[in-house]
């Protein structure tokens, strides 16, 4: 029942900035189909986090708008259909224990009593941390914290997941586990990450943002494999897309460090 041309979310000419400043992003235009997984890549400070926040409706749009199923999103309204998992897990977990944190969102979508308990248990089960339900939030490892964040939004049955740097600070074992988990979910996803291998594994489609706009949007292999495009925006082609023969570690593109006299200024 998923048609690629039926869009779940439509972003139309969006411009957005922080606290009345000049827009960080402008003229943003794209659509997400139900169940589609899209990678969002770009250098530090390009505006990935800003875009994800804007899609949830907490940042006011300077221009344009966001439509969910054709309805325009209200500023600071509560839209449980769209869920954001933050870049820093400890910003998102604010209740004393894991179970209470997961219950917070569920209560706000109207669950209560036995239905609430069931929903919380199911969400914890889905991400595989049922045994941690009564643990205080700050006694969790980084990987467990991120899974708790995910449970906290899954319990509200969102239709779109926005994930900001999901593999940050995870070791390879936890990262692999997260990838398997995300691969098994049916929701549409927008995944912002510097971890291009992860993007490549999860997302058939990739958007590259830089200089305040979307500079490329297309199939993952085409965007991430385009050496000239990637180099122009300070990226490197992921190792798994280069034809290595194990003879050492050479990087395909020298990257912008070749330009002399340019400091590592990005985020400003």
């Amino acid at each position, binding site marked *: 029942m998923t048609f690629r041309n039926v869009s779940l979310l439509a972003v139309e000419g969006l411009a957005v900035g922080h606290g009345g400043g000049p827009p960080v992003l402008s003229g943003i235009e794209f659509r997400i189909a139900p169940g589609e997984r899209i990678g969002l890549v770009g250098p530090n400070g390009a505006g990935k986090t800003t875009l994800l*926040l804007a899609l*949830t409706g*907490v940042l006011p749009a300077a221009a344009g708008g966001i439509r969910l199923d054709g309805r325009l999103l209200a500023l*600071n309204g*509560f839209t*449980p259909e769209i*869920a*954001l998992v*933050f870049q*820093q897990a*400890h*910003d*998102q*977990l*604010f*209740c*004393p*224990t894991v*179970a*209470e944190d997961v*219950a*917070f*969102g569920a*209560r*706000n*979508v*109207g669950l*209560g009593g036995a239905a609430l*308990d069931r929903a*919380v248990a199911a969400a914890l089960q889905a991400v595989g941390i049922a045994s941690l*339900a009564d643990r205080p*939030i*700050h006694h969790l490892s980084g990987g467990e914290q991120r899974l708790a964040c995910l449970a*906290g*939004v899954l319990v*509200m049955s969102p239709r779109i997941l926005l994930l900001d740097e999901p593999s940050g600070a995870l070791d390879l074992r936890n990262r692999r586990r997260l990838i398997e988990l995300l691969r098994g979910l049916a929701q549409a996803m927008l995944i912002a990450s510097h971890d291009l291998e992860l993007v490549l594994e999860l997302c058939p489609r990739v958007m590259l943002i830089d200089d305040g706009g979307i500079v490329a949007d297309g199939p993952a292999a085409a965007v991430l494999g385009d050496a000239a495009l990637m180099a122009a925006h300070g990226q490197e082609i992921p190792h798994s897309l280069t034809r290595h023969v194990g003879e050492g570690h050479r990087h395909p593109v020298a990257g912008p460090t070749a330009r002399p006299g340019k400091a590592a200024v990005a985020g400003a």
Partner: protein
Amino acid sequence: MPREPAGPGPIADPRLRILALVVLAFGFSALTDPRALALMVVLTVALAWRFGLPPAVLARRLRWPGVVVCGLVILLPLLSGETVLVRLGPLSVRAEGLEAALGIALRFLCIVAAAAALLAPVPLPRLVAALRALGLPALMADMALLMLRHIEELRQGLSRMRVAMRLRGAPTGFWSGQFRGIGWALASLLLRSHAQSERIYHAMILRGHGAAEAAPERFRASPGDWSALAVLVAAGTGLLVLEHML
């Protein structure tokens, strides 16, 4: 969610534990008569036994305030009153002061023991929820919960920052101008927390904070809880009545 009982003892509902403690603590603090004080000690020992108060928990709570109380207990007999009991060189121990000091020491010990017996087993977030149910303003309850959530993280942040200072040779000792360093570390932590609090507020809105009036946590008191509370309240008020009759 299944809730484990608040701890050993005949009262499971933390709200009733708080009520019982309030009655007992304020009741104890009004006692001066030696016989009432003796009964207070008996009652406290019974309470500590019935609620399974571990001695280590009590000892930990006596450490901080113990300094102030010890100071008073040592000074009062030397400074206060007229009836001299013993002369120790230039100092003299006086009866009224000694009596007051003994009263202070006993009341202090009993109140701290009662508080430890009743509240120590209750997890702090649960305690805040119980206070909310007893009428603490929602704003303060929210502040308290959020604050609890961040204390450990901030403690580690501050200690990492102080390690960083030491590794770059920050001198220790009083006259080293390290106050500026401490002030700067504190200011950095405040700035960081300020930025973080903004993100937390967003996270709360995104999960429906304020969209619906979230139902406060429910507590259920069993008949056993109520009768235990009644016994404790009766004992506390009984002591007060006794104090006034004697």
